């Protein structure tokens, strides 16, 4: 037990990867074995991260459960893990969504072993980013996660998967190029990649670097970081990979993509940009807020214009993640003020909330796609009487996405708007107009699928639509419970987030 207690984070981090390696050697062709093995294993990180959550002392400043191992001593990088309230929230989101996504993948019948292995590798990649306290380790996991996702889209995706997967890969790698170079620059300057050391020294660094004034270098490096994260979030105009990748990915892939992968970008803003570049973040907060507002407004408008159900949900992610960055931009502009704290609280909670609702929405789109083999909104219509349970769940989740008071989305978006309004009034006001469109596209989605004249094709005969299965309901239950719980009583999670925010900035 002692070993577990002292190695909690590394156990959470490496259990999935280790399980994937074990799966490689399981001598069996039985799909069920692989499904249940992966599903079962994914509860280990979940349980352990709950242990961490309940043993986490939110009033204690700094990182907890730290572990350090030698990794690449030659260039001053070590495997340094640790969590604070911000990263712990994201770790919990990841370990929670992975079992659900695996459960949602039980309908995959093609090459199950490879699929499940990739999924577990993906979980390790994402968790590593959230736990890393070493800049190089952060980058390592940041890139590693791309590979399983690429293959998940490329091998199990729908018709246009080749294009979408390569675009996803090249976009993200291209975006990360600047990050890579900037990370190297920092490593060369400080002879270490320790995040806390760099954070303590870089913002005050004033010596010219290679004959170039430090402020110029910092500005360039700031944008190198910011673009890498903006591609991942994604911010307008770097978002164009997202609708393709989401639409073509298999259902569970979309769930994780929207639920966790997008959060990596926002997490990068919070974990790296705000501490490393406070001055630049302050100077360019307006530009970030502009891009965020554009993402909110254009994301909503684009979503409204879609005729493909999955694309509609995909663009809604652009819209929702825009609020996260708006909150971050406001906090960067007025760091330390009470409004900034509120905005940041909202942004982090919005990350968690969007993780829940977007994963749920993508899953629900997948449920109906598996039955009808179409995502065209015009092909649906009037399905509510045929599948009342599914309809109820869809409406519930959509309402969370729309920001209905009483559900989680309202809390976080309210906090973001409340915090940002005094700081970035104009942008926030425009963004609130964007919220109006959010309502419009969500209602359009519901209307096209559930209401209106019934499409007779799904009512009778061989295409008769079947109700959502127990397994599928089980995927949604934890999500819906959390959506409701945070909506009614957000204090349990906001408490942890708020303490982290206060201590960070």
């Amino acid at each position, binding site marked *: 037990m002692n070993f577990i207690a002292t190695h909690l984070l590394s156990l959470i981090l490496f259990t999935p990867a280790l399980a994937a390696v074990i799966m490689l050697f399981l001598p069996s062709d039985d799909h069920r074995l692989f499904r249940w093995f992966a599903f079962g294993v994914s509860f280990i990180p979940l349980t352990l991260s709950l242990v961490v959550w309940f043993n986490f002392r939110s009033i204690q400043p700094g990182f907890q459960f730290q572990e350090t191992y*030698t*990794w*690449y*001593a*030659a*260039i001053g990088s070590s495997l340094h893990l640790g969590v604070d309230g911000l990263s712990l929230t994201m770790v919990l989101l990841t370990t929670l969504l992975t079992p659900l996504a695996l459960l949602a993948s039980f309908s995959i019948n093609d090459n199950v072993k490879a699929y499940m292995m990739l999924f577990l590798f993906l979980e390790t990649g994402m968790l590593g980013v959230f736990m890393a306290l070493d800049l*190089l380790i952060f*980058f*390592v*996991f940041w*890139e*590693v996660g791309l*590979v399983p996702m*690429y293959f998940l889209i*490329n*091998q199990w995706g729908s018709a246009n998967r*080749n294009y979408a997967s*390569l675009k996803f*890969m*090249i976009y993200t*790698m*291209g975006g990360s*190029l600047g990050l*890579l*170079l900037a990370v*190297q*620059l920092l*490593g*060369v300057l400080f002879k270490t990649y320790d995040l806390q050391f760099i954070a303590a020294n870089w913002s005050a660094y004033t010596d010219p670097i*290679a004959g170039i004034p430090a402020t110029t270098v910092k500005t360039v490096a700031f944008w190198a970081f910011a673009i890498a994260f903006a591609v991942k979030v994604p911010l307008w105009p770097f978002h164009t990979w997202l609708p393709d990748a989401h639409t073509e990915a298999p259902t569970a892939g979309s769930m994780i993509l929207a639920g966790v992968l997008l959060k990596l970008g926002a997490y990068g803003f919070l974990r790296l940009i705000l501490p490393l570049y406070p001055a630049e973040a302050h100077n360019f907060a307006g530009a970030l807020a502009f891009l965020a507002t554009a993402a909110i407004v254009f994301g909503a408008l684009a979503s409204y214009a879609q005729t493909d159900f999955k694309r509609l949900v995909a663009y809604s992610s652009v819209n929702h993640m825009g609020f996260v960055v708006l909150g971050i931009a406001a906090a960067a502009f007025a760091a330390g003020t009470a409004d900034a704290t509120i905005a940041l609280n909202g942004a982090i909670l919005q990350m968690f909330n969007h993780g829940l609702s977007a994963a749920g929405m993508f899953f629900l789109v997948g449920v109906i796609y598996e039955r009808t083999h179409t995502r065209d909104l015009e092909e649906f219509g009037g399905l509510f009487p045929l599948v009342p349970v599914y309809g109820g769940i869809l409406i519930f989740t959509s309402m969370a996405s729309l920001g209905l008071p009483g559900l989680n989305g309202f809390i976080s978006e309210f906090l973001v708007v409340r915090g940002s309004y005094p700081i970035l009034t104009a942008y926030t006001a425009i963004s609130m107009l964007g919220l109006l469109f959010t309502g419009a596209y969500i209602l359009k989605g519901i209307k096209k699928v559930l209401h209106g004249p019934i499409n007779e094709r799904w009512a009778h005969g061989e295409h008769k639509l079947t109700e959502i299965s127990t397994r599928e309901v089980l995927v949604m239950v934890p999500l819906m419970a959390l959506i409701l719980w945070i909506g009614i009583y957000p204090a349990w999670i906001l408490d942890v987030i708020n303490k982290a925010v206060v201590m960070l900035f």
Partner: protein
Amino acid sequence: MNFPVLSIITFTPMVAAAIMLLLPAQRKNETRAVALAAAIFALTLSFWVFFNYDQAAGGYQFVEKYNWLPALGITLQFGVDGMSAPLVLLTGVVMFTGVLISWGDEHVMAGIQDRPREFFAFLFILATGVFGVFVSLDLFMLFFFYEIAVFPMYLLIAIWGWVVTREYAAMKLTLYLFIGSVVSLVGVIVMYWVAGHNSGVFTFDMLQMEKAGFSQTFQNIWFLPVFLGFAVLGGIWPFHNWSPDGHVAAPTAVSMFHAGVLMKLGAFAALRVGIMLLPEGAKYWSWLIMLFAAVAVVYGAYIAFVQKDLKYMIGFSSVSHMGLVMLGFSTLNRAGLTGAGVQMFSHGVMTALFFAITGMIYDRSHTRQIPELGGMSRIMPFAAIGFIIGGLVSMGMPGFSGFVAEFPIFMGVWGSRWLVAVIASISIIITAAYIMRNIRQVFFGDVPEKLEGHMTDVTVLDKVAITTLCLFMIAIGLFPSFMVPMVQTGVENILRLLGGA
């Protein structure tokens, strides 16, 4: 005198070649068995050297010294340092896997079925040359083994190569490399005379020549011919042109040797003779080497991107990756040189794997045209996984050896000329694009009708080879301490010659 492990490693392939030539030509399996036994023996010993090298002590170890031609100051002197020990191991690994994948399968005509006796004999003579270069501490001997390594290449390509271009490629390769080595030879002899006149002792002993105290002017004049003459074999732009042609025309095991080890031979000799004996010249010309290397990195990647032939694609990607080695050399600082040392090993293993798998596909499909292939993961899943792992190494994906090697190289470039780092980094994206595109095209999708039913899975020996190569790439990627500290001890020595830094 201790156990003479280095001479045993060096001459094992030569002895094995002699034994094979004494066997009757039709006893193909016996010949192969001798080859495999010799390869395993050499590999085991090179592992032994690798793990018994005392990193704390550093310097040259397992040193052996025999008189050879005392009148001219030539000795047979062997020893390894942190730079060459990994390369000896690399040669052992490539030799072992090269024999495995050449064993072949008579039913599908995979591997080497035509005159395996002569093939393995020539290949092993080449291997002796390669081992010899890596362990020689005497400049004359280094040169001697260098030529031994180059010559069998001609025969191997011209006899067993791809029918269409083998004569052209063999001739081109040999001419390029001989011209390069003649230029270096002139430089080497001048160094011998000048060092002799300076100190009064005429010797080819490189440890002595390091102390020769060549004047700045001398070094400035002679660094370029010596360095570039060797670097031709390292595939440095703009003298890389022989290399993709040679790779494509060569039979699989020879391509593995060629890209995996021979190109390292050029880079290593350029480092050993060029940079370590003429350090001031290296400092003076580092900008030019860096320029050439940066062009190779980006241009090589771009040319690889537009290839339709799988083997040409890998050939040009080798130019790009060897460019990174040269880039690391040209930084002349700790991070860059360390990265270059690891990159030599990493690229050697990776490209050997690439050529091995390409050979397995070609032997069965008789085409290397990327658009004509597809769906190979269903026929040979093991090879597909191997190729994907190689691809990730090639892209510099973290968790694999390519990242561990490239990252310090870029850090080194940051420390010397930052703009070059920015330019060279473009290659990462291009590499990712062509690797991913080709993996998808060759291994996924549908099997083309023409190939349906004609293809078989790879053999067990092939799988052993693929596994061996992959394990190295993953081990270094996850645990850089497996190799990096050793390379660092070698780098310390180079930095000492460069005068601190």
